[in-house]
């Protein structure tokens, strides 16, 4: 692959990713939003995380997996329980990855 294409992609992604992230923070933090809009925004984090979990767990790599052949689903369940019980982000993530390897071996 030519160095020119690689540099074009690197520069393009850098510019575009910042252009996507910055304006909404800069503009909306200086705008007085109505109460309903603030409430709406307060539900975005939980909704976004639920969406990311579902996408990454039920259909990893774009492929739908049933419950009995899906180590992602079971490992995610354990990860959630560990976080809920111990409130440790690090602990839950590590236990989750270990369980994933175990469930992968178990479910073939």
């Amino acid at each position, binding site marked *: *692959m030519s*160095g020119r*294409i*690689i*540099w*074009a*992609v*690197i520069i*393009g*992604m*850098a510019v*575009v*990713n*910042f252009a*996507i*992230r*910055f304006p*909404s*923070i*800069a*503009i*909306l*933090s*200086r705008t007085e939003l109505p109460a*309903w809009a*603030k409430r*709406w*925004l*307060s*539900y*975005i*984090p*939980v*909704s*976004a*995380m*639920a*969406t*990311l*979990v*579902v*996408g*990454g*767990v039920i259909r*990893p*790599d*774009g492929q739908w997996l049933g419950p009995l052949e899906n180590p992602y689903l079971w490992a*995610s369940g354990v*990860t*959630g329980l560990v*976080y809920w019980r111990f409130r440790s*982000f690090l602990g*839950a*993530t*590590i236990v*989750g*990855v270990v369980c*994933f*390897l175990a469930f*992968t071996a178990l479910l073939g």
Partner: protein
Amino acid sequence: MPEERSKQDACPPRARFVRGLKLGLPIFLGYAPIGAAFGIVARGLGFTPLQAAICSGTALAGAGQLIALQLLGAGAGAVAVVFTTAIVNLRYVLFGAAMSQHVTGMTLPHQAFLAFTLTDETFAVNIDDSRRGTADFASMAGVGVIAWTGWVLGSAAGALAAGAIGDPTRFGVQFAMPAMFTALLVAQAEDRTHVLTAVVAALFAIGLMLILPDPWYLIVAPVLAATVATVVSR
């Protein structure tokens, strides 16, 4: 709030920054192996280790970068690659909007720095911390810096040691992101309304994955779920 503010003021910025580094340590540990996976694939496509590190350090785009490599490998041109990663990362417009309510009063350069380090994980950790009243620029910057470091070091290491590491999936790397998302989801589900909102978002996500081309469900499902929650909780 005034009490919390005075507590923060009593704590020097450096200590608050270090607190942010500690908060973000799990992100570092999660990002480093995924970054390594990016580095390995990038090297295979002709990136030098320096190019892989610069790409990760300037884009910090996670899944967007991995998809960019897939497209490059399939022979796509630079414009198509950049455009596709932009679509994949459009959800950050939404995340930035939600973040904006937690960074009011910060200077534009500080907000620019936080925008630069905005990822799914830094977003969730900082919002969670902010709702407890313990976040400020220094702590959020700490979370961002440690996440960025994990991603960039991982990418560089992967690109440098591509031959020695081999297939990173045998270490369970592919579950690092879903594991972090799951823990962060439970952290966000603080009361009954938020739990129900998560369930509604999950159902929308499943339905939308069936009918929309990727990755639009990532943007549309949260928008719909937050709208339902706002209307119902009125």
